[in-house]
């Protein structure tokens, strides 16, 4: 069925096309198959969009994420009005705050008489792009003379009056990089241990397999909680950030190791590996020149599928107050504010940080599935 499967990757299979398939490299075949998987391609674009936020968070934010002001507590999201008197002139209405005489809660009313024009690529608070270049341009801002942090709240504000949109941008940066770092560490552990286990077999394999089995049969959240609770309270944001990354990667490597061991076991007996050994390739050469390239795409797929679990883990830990702690900003830290159902019932926009979590997890899942299917160009 190999021929028919190739044809599946390319709808119009003329003889010339088939010639192309025979000489294509594995990466080309993978790419051709992946391209066919439309949901996966769309997910790849979504994921790419997410990762653009990582370097661009400062540029995309409207105001300083930690600028707080009790006067602006729990403002609802503002709608952008695109047209003014029939002409394209994006603006938002100013919000008038007042205290409800009965409940003493602050309520906000949009004031249509007060139109605040939105400017693109406007000047705002100062930051360093990529941590290097001082800049003050932002995607969205207001006229000079006004302060964005007191006027534009695309997604409303939190209890302390901080702009949720800007905080979300910074949270995305932290949550996504923590996932990426965590998965990288898991990958190193997984490749080394899974590779040793699969290539050498014997006692080493048994020991590593038992360790994996034990780790997999332990409920992880209580363990994470225990480890995370052990982090000293006086650590800096950066220290906590790396510690949390290590914690989530320590328990996430087992699945990757399992996949890699499986590939090693399958490949060890393959003719091309046996012949590589027979012609006298060293062990390292056999592994890195002959075996690893042939399951590189599997590793990439497995890694992509491991990422969502990392993101969810960080979010869950921070949500419990055991992961990143304010003033650090991550999706989990943002969601902490939504823990209380009474608060959420009055200010439902506090739940908005759940949206990127769900979208990112889904996009990674679809992308990983597409990659996994594509990784096996001669497969089903």
């Amino acid at each position, binding site marked *: 069925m190999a021929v028919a499967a190739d044809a599946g990757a390319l709808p119009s299979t003329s003889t010339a096309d088939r010639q192309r398939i025979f000489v294509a490299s594995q990466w080309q075949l993978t790419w051709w198959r992946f391209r066919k998987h439309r949901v996966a391609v769309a997910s790849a674009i979504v994921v790419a969009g997410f990762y653009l936020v990582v370097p661009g968070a400062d540029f995309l934010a409207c105001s300083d994420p930690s600028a707080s002001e009790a006067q602006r507590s729990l403002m609802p999201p503002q709608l952008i009005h695109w047209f003014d008197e029939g002409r394209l002139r994006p603006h938002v209405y100013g919000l008038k705050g007042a205290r409800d005489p009965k409940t003493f809660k602050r309520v906000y009313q949009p004031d249509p008489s007060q139109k605040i024009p939105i400017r693109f690529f406007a000047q705002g608070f100062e930051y360093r792009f990529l941590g290097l270049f001082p800049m003050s341009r932002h995607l969205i801002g207001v006229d000079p003379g006004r302060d964005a942090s007191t006027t534009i709240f695309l997604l409303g504000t939190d209890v302390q009056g901080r702009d949720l949109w800007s905080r979300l941008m910074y949270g995305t940066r932290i949550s996504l990089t923590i996932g990426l770092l965590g998965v990288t560490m898991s990958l190193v552990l997984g490749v080394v241990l899974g590779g040793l286990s699969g290539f050498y077999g014997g006692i080493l394999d048994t020991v590593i397999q038992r360790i994996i089995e034990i780790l997999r049969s332990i409920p992880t959240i*209580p363990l994470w*909680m225990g480890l995370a609770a052990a982090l000293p309270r006086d650590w800096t944001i950066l220290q906590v950030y790396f510690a949390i990354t290590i914690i989530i990667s320590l328990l996430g490597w087992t699945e990757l190791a399992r996949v890699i061991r499986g590939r090693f076991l399958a490949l060890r007996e393959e003719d091309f590996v046996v012949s590589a050994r027979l012609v006298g390739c060293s062990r390292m050469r056999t592994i890195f020149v002959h075996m690893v390239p042939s399951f590189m795409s599997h590793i990439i797929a497995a890694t992509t599928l491991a990422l969502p679990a990392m993101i969810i883990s960080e979010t869950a830990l921070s949500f419990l107050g055991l992961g990143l702690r304010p003033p650090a900003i991550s999706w989990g830290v943002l969601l902490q504010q939504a823990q209380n159902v009474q608060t959420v019932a009055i200010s439902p926009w506090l739940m908005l940080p759940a949206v990127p979590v769900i979208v990112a997890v889904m996009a990674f899942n679809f992308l990983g599935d597409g990659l996994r299917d594509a990784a096996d160009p001669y497969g089903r």
Partner: protein
Amino acid sequence: MLAYIGRRALLAVFTVWAISMLAFAIIQLPPGDYVTSYIAQMASMGSVVTDEEAQNLRIQYGLGQPIYVQYWKWMKQIGDGNFGFSMEWRRPVTEVIGERLWLTVVVAVSALLLTWVLALPIGIYSAVRQYSIGDYTATFVGFIGLAVPNFLLALVLLYLGFTMFNAHIGGLFSPELQDAPWSWARVWDLLKHLPIPALILGLAGTAQQIRIMRANLLDELGKPYVVTARSKGLPETRVIVKYPVRMALNPFASTIGYTLPYIVSGSIIVSLVLGLPTVGPLLLRALISQDMFLAGTIVLLLGIMTVIGTLISDIVLVWIDPRIRLEDT
């Protein structure tokens, strides 16, 4: 077969030992001990603990000794059924945990059962009617189930219940039965409250199991023995149920072992959101206040529970697959 079960049981014992070490190590990791946090607590309330008092407390709780001695003492106590003393609650750990452990088991097991009850028929349907609308729907709902972390799902349901029905959907009991002694009314109350947490906890597992069942069954449906069964003239339903489904159950059953730790993990965090009287909220509080014996016991008991569950699933697996049964006889 006995050899197989024996091997699994041995591994389970080994796992429990590893968990006990980990549990104890975790408790020992934080800088300072219970007395340190007790002093801090006292200081925040305006009273001062003298060094002498602190020293006496440490001796009383055996905190000054080397770690392996403390571990050994803890293990010996557990052998006598004494899990230690909760320093925060000033009561034996077993008393503090009380029925919460059993409620955790009830919640986890009902989530697991729900996972099976939903995943089995839906998975079979999805495979047999591959690419039908029903299959696409199941796949889509499955993806949502996998993508939405269960605590967020709990949050959303809580919010919807609160705003749309003005009802609090959390908890496992109605307020008036919260602390009542066990009675049929209380059991019935529990059963009424159980579906929502079970669904929230079971959804991700269900989604995963549906995918596993579907993939396995699709593999099996292409096997020659299915053609053989069909060529005998068996009705299609019987062909599928007797042969490929039976085969696909095998890897399906072997994943319970991995689903259970996942559900137990999830139950901790979902309990916090929904305010369920399980060990979850207790664990979080114990960890924050460094109430070491309480936290350690909870981690240990959760681990043991999971290991037992996994062992049961292994035995079920042997019962389903005669090939394993025959392997070592």
